[in-house]
């Protein structure tokens, strides 16, 4: 949260996560080199540079595919949320591996000549109309540029100072970047390497990423369109959230007003409070988080808010919108009109002993 910036807000979990990612990358590169040397021998032996190029390129492609799968997969199965938590470090690691691949390719194929390497990259191959000899390096370079922009602006400072909206737009460029990377591989490596399994692997990665996003996206749309029942009382159209015992203790049930944003209705300490489901940090789903130490904790990056007023505990200053709640018998009702962020709202009290 934003009481003051540090380079990285380290915690033991992030250290373990990063150590695992580092270890996996090093292991993959090592194995790739070892197997490559074993398979290609004699007159077909590959130079160390080409082997490293392929190892780094394939590693970056696999990492990007995994990074892109985490979001929709965690929406489909909540057990994957811990992987989502530190996804940004995985994204930066992906950029670093891709950048090494790009730098090595530029140096190996375009460096040490009389022409500037970048100029050589842009002018050596201009067969834009050919599928087989397409300058596949260009989509790769464009994707690398996007990954650079994302990695360079991954710190929370940028989220805050570019505005959350612009930041999200910038980071949604990863989708076209993935399309560019798939084209880079399909028009490059797959044109030169004819083994069926390589084509199958690339197709499987692209299909998994695409399908997961489409499935998770269509479920989210269905949830947004979900039928809700409204109850008229006190000149307010109250939104019926469900029965008290349908909300697990220290957890929330997410309600959705027609055409409106989602509302997270929490039950904690014999009370019911409703706040916006959208975290002020990166829009994480607060209603999928838990109440920890009396504060609603976002499942994405652990930002916290007090359920009764939507304010982050001091010294933090973030706020989310709150909603009026009432309990009618055992039914929980919420007023779908959002109050300004940080507005204190009297919680509805419930008897915990009534739980079935």
């Amino acid at each position, binding site marked *: 949260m934003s009481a003051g910036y540090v380079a990285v807000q380290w915690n033991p979990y992030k250290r373990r996560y990063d150590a695992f990612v580092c270890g996996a990358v090093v292991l993959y590169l090592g194995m790739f080199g070892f197997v490559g040397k074993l398979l290609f021998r004699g007159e077909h032996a590959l130079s160390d540079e080409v082997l490293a190029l392929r190892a780094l390129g394939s590693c970056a492609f696999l990492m990007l595919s995994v990074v892109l799968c985490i979001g929709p997969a965690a929406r489909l199965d909540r057990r994957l949320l811990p992987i989502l938590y530190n996804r940004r470090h995985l994204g930066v690691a992906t950029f670093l591996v891709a950048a090494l691949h790009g730098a090595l390719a530029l140096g190996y194929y375009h460096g040490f000549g009389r022409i500037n390497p970048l100029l050589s990259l*842009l002018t050596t191959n201009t067969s834009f109309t050919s599928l087989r000899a397409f300058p596949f390096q260009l989509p790769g370079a464009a994707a690398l540029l996007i990954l*650079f922009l994302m990695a360079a602006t991954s*710190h929370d400072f940028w989220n805050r100072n570019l505005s959350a909206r612009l930041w999200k737009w910038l980071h949604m460029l990863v989708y076209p970047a993935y399309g560019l990377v798939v084209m880079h591989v399909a028009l490059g490596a797959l044109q030169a390497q004819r083994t069926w399994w390589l084509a199958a692997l690339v197709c499987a990665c692209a299909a998994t990423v695409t399908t997961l996003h489409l499935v998770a996206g269509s479920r989210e749309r269905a949830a947004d369109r979900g039928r809700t029942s409204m109850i008229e009382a006190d000149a307010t159209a109250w939104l019926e959230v469900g029965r008290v015992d349908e909300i697990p203790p220290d957890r929330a049930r997410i309600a959705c007003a027609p055409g409106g944003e989602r509302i997270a209705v929490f039950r904690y300490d014999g009370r019911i409070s409703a706040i916006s489901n959208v975290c002020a940090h990166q829009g994480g789903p607060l209603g999928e988080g838990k109440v920890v130490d009396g504060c609603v904790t976002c499942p994405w990056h652990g930002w916290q808010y007090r359920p009764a007023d939507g304010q982050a505990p001091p010294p933090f200053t973030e706020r989310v919108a709150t909603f009026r709640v009432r309990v009618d018998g055992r039914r929980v009702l919420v007023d779908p009109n959002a109050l300004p962020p940080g507005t204190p709202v009297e919680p509805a009290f419930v008897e915990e002993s009534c739980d079935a």
Partner: protein
Amino acid sequence: MVVAEAVVILLAVYALLGLLFAVAFVTCGVQRLDPAARPAPWGFRLLILPGSAALWPLLLLRWWGSTKGGASS
């Protein structure tokens, strides 16, 4: 070829200006733009350097805006 040369030269000029701006921005501009960055350590400043160099026109506008706003208040 001419277009490619122009692209490379423009890119180089943009990057060079960006680098110069970024050094100035992370040393004295960042705390003006965001008070939360006032006590920020050097690790943080180094970490936002590449982004500052890449997005320098945007930050320059914001920095300029913040100094003007600061003068009027």
